[in-house]
């Protein structure tokens, strides 16, 4: 831990491996409460500078896995721009300045017997730690995971490893459209396998779930993304509009979320 700032620390990179052409898996070891981060919480990473580029602000990254026993936290990130290119250059033994855990994560209601997790793209990283948490809480998980191509589907093994049933849909196979996903979800609801929706990464799929949640009176939670500066609720860079009982309200993704009530989120 850092003597000056209790949530900021230098973590040691354990590994940083490519999972496919776009995503890397970064595991760091660190002391303190970082490794007990909850699903849906995030860290602000101070990305190293890749050659010729100078990312300045920290980059928000969801907890992919947190293992208090091993003292590790991991992230699964898509290499997108300057910051994530800087992360991609990290190797075993390097140090990374991480700030967190931050934000309000998912809550699992002990009354739920089974949940449906729906994610797409980098949203799959955010949802992954739910697999471990739900298993620990005795909640059955069905994960509907979406990506452009099958090889970009991440987190499938994580969900299966914790006993979840996984359905994959992709653009290249023509199975990821909202109509097809809606049919899948209706099937799960009819089979009694859905006490709640937990989702991240696609506003189209979020709209489908909002519709179904309303129709079948199901609760839900969604993890939102927005550009951030402070990550702590101070700067108001990250506000989004939400619908609270018909009234539009602003909320900060970094501290009021990133996980919000499914029915309040606006696509």
């Amino acid at each position, binding site marked *: 831990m850092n003597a*000056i700032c209790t949530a*900021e620390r230098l973590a040691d990179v354990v590994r940083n491996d490519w999972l496919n052409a776009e995503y890397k898996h970064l595991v760091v070891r660190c002391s303190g409460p970082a490794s007990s981060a909850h699903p849906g919480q995030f860290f602000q990473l101070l990305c190293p500078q890749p050659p010729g580029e100078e990312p300045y602000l920290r980059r928000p990254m969801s907890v992919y896995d947190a293992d208090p026993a091993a003292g590790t936290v991991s992230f699964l990130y898509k290499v997108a721009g300057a910051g994530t290119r800087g992360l991609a250059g990290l190797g075993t033994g390097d140090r990374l300045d991480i700030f967190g855990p931050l934000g309000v994560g998912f809550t699992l209601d002990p009354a739920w017997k089974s949940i449906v997790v729906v994610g797409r793209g980098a949203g799959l990283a955010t949802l992954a730690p739910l697999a471990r948490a739900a298993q620990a809480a005795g909640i059955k998980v069905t994960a509907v995971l979406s990506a452009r191509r099958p090889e970009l589907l991440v987190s499938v093994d994580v969900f299966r490893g914790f006993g979840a049933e996984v359905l994959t849909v992709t653009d290249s196979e023509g199975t990821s459209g909202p109509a097809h996903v809606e049919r899948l979800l209706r099937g799960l609801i009819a089979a009694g396998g859905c006490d709640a929706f937990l989702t991240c990464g696609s506003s189209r799929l979020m709209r489908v779930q909002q519709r179904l949640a309303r129709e079948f009176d199901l609760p839900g939670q969604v993890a939102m993304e927005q550009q951030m*500066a402070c990550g702590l609720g101070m700067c108001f860079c990250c506000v989004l509009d939400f619908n609270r009982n018909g009234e539009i309200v602003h909320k900060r993704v970094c501290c009021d979320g990133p996980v919000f009530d499914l029915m309040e989120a606006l696509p």
Partner: protein
Amino acid sequence: MTDLSVEIGGVRLANPVMPASGTFSEEMEKVIDLNRLGAFVTKTITREIRAGNPLPRVAETRSGMLNSIGIPSKGVASFIKETMSRYADYRPPLVVSISAPTAEGFASLAEQLTLPGVAAIEANISCPNLEEDGKAFAMTASSTANVVQKLRAATRLPLWVKLTPNTGDVAGVARAAESMGADALVVANTILAMSIDIHTFRPRLGNVMGGLSGPAIKPIVLRQVYQCAQAVGIPIVGCGGIATAEDAVEYLLAGASAVQVGTATFVQPGAMLRIIDGIDRFCESRSLPSVRGLIGAVLNEEADVPDLAWVEPVS
């Protein structure tokens, strides 16, 4: 142990480091020891309840960022009831930043906030003045004089006036504020700037233009602090791009009596505390008994005025 205390226009600070308005809130208590700060400065508050600007509100640049947050405000009543009480348990004095679209509006807000528990008012006069076609008060000496005069009459609290770096006549504006009774100046707010995404051809900010802050602006604002320090006798709080103790020392040497740290806190949440420790070490290494020995201590062999004529900003 160096004596780090300074006096800023009637407010005694245990050390010269405080947050810049809009880059700090009581949420920081979760991650740093707030009692170590020289003072608290609130996000600018307005009388009316405001939503703030369209998204996106932030864009990164080299060594800094652009923001067009606007001034989302929950209004005065909520500030007095909820926010002020959160600060009451801490030692550092509370400086309340205010803004209004008219000089009268500024005055009445200052009057309403003249309350026990408020150590000083920081008037953010970098905001648009509706009575002058939306041009910020602090752009000209005359509208600065007008608003500061009304503020002075409205409150007995120490009055800090925050200037904009976008004026070509910062010394004139500083003199106007001093002559109308400002107790200190905060120099400065963000620099008007913009950025365009060349892939989409769209401005990167929803508001098209926004304020540049962070290390990128330091040399410009440092120059303005120097110019203000030459022009006025009241204390100056330097603010612009300070990220390290060295940056802060530079501002003190230029004539600032204290500093505010903004954007750097987003990158290093512990930045302010590290700067305090670093200033202490710096003074010790120079055997200075008090940080006050650094204020305005820049050694300059005066340049001849004509030498600089070609870089003089025109207003």
